[in-house]
């Protein structure tokens, strides 16, 4: 028996498994964690992996596995909020720019270029510095640069899709602009948006952990991944395990979302989407 197309894509399958595992860890953290995040075990400080402490412990004997599992909640929450915000705003901007064209397109794309012109981490740091730490503020800081990519990609898709026969037909039938944009064009532009969102989750996780690593994420005792990694650097010379495991957790998670995004890109090739649009 031949496997369905999406199951034959290694990137997609591996990426989906890793991403699902991390999402499950975040959702079911209280059931998966073996210890409380602040529960100390001073006899087992800096312990290596054991049956009791799967990933070892930190300088207070706190269970690293449990802290990383709860850390997944924070990383994913911030990433999902920022990606959802970026996708919605970027999509609306891209749709409007591509569909209306003319001065609307020029104005919106110039604004997009301006935000794209700032190194993401620098602008994010500045925003967190002025707004203060907090889940929403950190997510907002990541969003401010991230939406631009959706805007550019959705604009490009819209420019192609607005020429399609079914869009012209909807126009001729007197459909309103919002109906054409959201009922005719958007469903056919969803492929690249889904791919970008998957890749964006990885980028957002790196950005959030970078802010936490530099000390501008959520304040302790919140066990964010970036902070756990930064905290581990204090003992880097003698006990590098702490930082290595925290960093590997971030990398594997980002790898999962990147592979998922790459796999989805193979399946939802925009060119295939356009051809599908022709047939409609």
């Amino acid at each position: 028996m031949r496997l369905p197309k999406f199951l034959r894509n290694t990137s997609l399958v591996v990426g989906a498994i890793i991403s699902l595992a991390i999402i499950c860890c975040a959702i079911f953290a209280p059931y998966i964690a073996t210890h409380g995040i602040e529960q100390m075990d001073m006899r087992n400080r800096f312990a290596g992996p054991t049956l009791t402490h799967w990933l070892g412990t930190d300088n207070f004997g706190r269970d690293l596995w449990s802290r990383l599992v709860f850390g997944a909640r924070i990383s994913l929450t911030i990433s999902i909020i920022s990606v959802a915000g970026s996708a919605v705003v970027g999509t609306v901007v891209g749709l409007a720019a591509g569909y209306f064209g003319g001065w609307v397109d020029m104005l919106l794309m110039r604004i997009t270029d301006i935000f794209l012109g700032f190194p993401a981490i620098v602008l994010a740091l500045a925003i967190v510095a002025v707004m203060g730490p907090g889940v929403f503020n950190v997510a907002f800081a990541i969003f401010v640069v991230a939406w631009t990519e959706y805007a550019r990609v959705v604009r490009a898709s819209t420019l192609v899709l607005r020429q399609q026969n079914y869009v012209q037909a909807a126009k001729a039938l007197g459909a309103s602009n919002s109906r054409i944009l959201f009922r005719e064009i958007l469903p056919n532009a969803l492929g690249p948006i889904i791919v970008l969102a998957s890749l964006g989750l990885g980028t957002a996780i790196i950005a959030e952990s970078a802010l936490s690593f530099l000390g501008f994420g959520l304040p302790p005792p919140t066990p964010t991944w970036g902070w756990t990694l930064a905290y581990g650097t204090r003992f880097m010379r003698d006990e590098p395990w702490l930082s290595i495991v925290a960093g590997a957790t971030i990398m594997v998670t980002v790898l999962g979302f990147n592979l998922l995004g790459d796999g989805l890109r193979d399946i939802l090739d925009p060119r295939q989407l356009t051809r599908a649009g022709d047939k409609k």
Partner: protein
Amino acid sequence: MLAYVVRRLLLMIPMLIGMVIVTFGLLLLIPGDPAAVLLGQEASPESIANLRDTLGLNDPWYVRLWDYFAMLLHGDMGQSIFQSAPVADIIAGRLGATIELAVVSLILASIIGIVLGVLAAIRQGSIIDTATMLLAQLGVSMPVYWMGLLLMLAFAVQLGWLPSIGRGTPMLQAIGAAVTGRPQVLWDSILHILLPSLALAANSAAVISRLVRTSMLEVLREDFVRTAYAKGLRRGRVVVRHALRNALLPVLSVIGLRFGALLGGAVLTESIFAWPGLGQLTITAISQRDLPLIQGIVLTFAIIFALVNLVVDLLYAAVDPRIRLG
């Protein structure tokens, strides 16, 4: 070409104005009284009133924005709140170190990325291709600061081969010293920059290698490559002289754009390796909530990025006539 250069330069003006507005807008994001927030809880009412006056907070926002523009046009970025020095001077003192780090990283990333990408493409489907692309996937997924820490742990802490922190003599001066018979100065600078630049380059090298592979695979299927082989040319010559030259064209613009990512990444790398550049200054400014300095740094990064984009576009247009005529 001249018309393209002028058009491209004119396009930069609204972009720069927009960037200034965004940078200025940072002040508006501060909840409550910015002066009180910036100075902290222990500040006296007098110092808060003084800062309000210095930052012009008593004026409406559009007057302040106008003043900010006027100030910038005179090359003035304001006064740092905590370092009692002009922001422009503080930034100018740090800019060289960051540009040096970013340029060396870009060179490293380009060399590593192109070599790996070409190897993967000419051995498509082999173990080399799989290993290279796996490496690239890991490189893209790896946080730059973790990469830095791992390199530091391996080469500075465990093996003791390279210095873990700090900067040697600035590279240009070191090259000068080497020319005048003191090569050890240059050697010391190279040893210092190796770890931070490698850490910073890893991500870009991964991105470049994936692009070079895709681009090479496309070019290797072209008729002129088959013709070159048919003429009896050696494989190495066909790959380097015929295929690579054409495959690199689309990669060039991406290499230029990576410079922006490297500048951003420098903030993290510099803080790990205590590299005395703009990135480290950013962390200090943000820790102290020194708003004029933060605004100056953000704007400087944006302007450098815009200028690099401009140069890349112009170079690209010079190489490929389709761009300037299209």
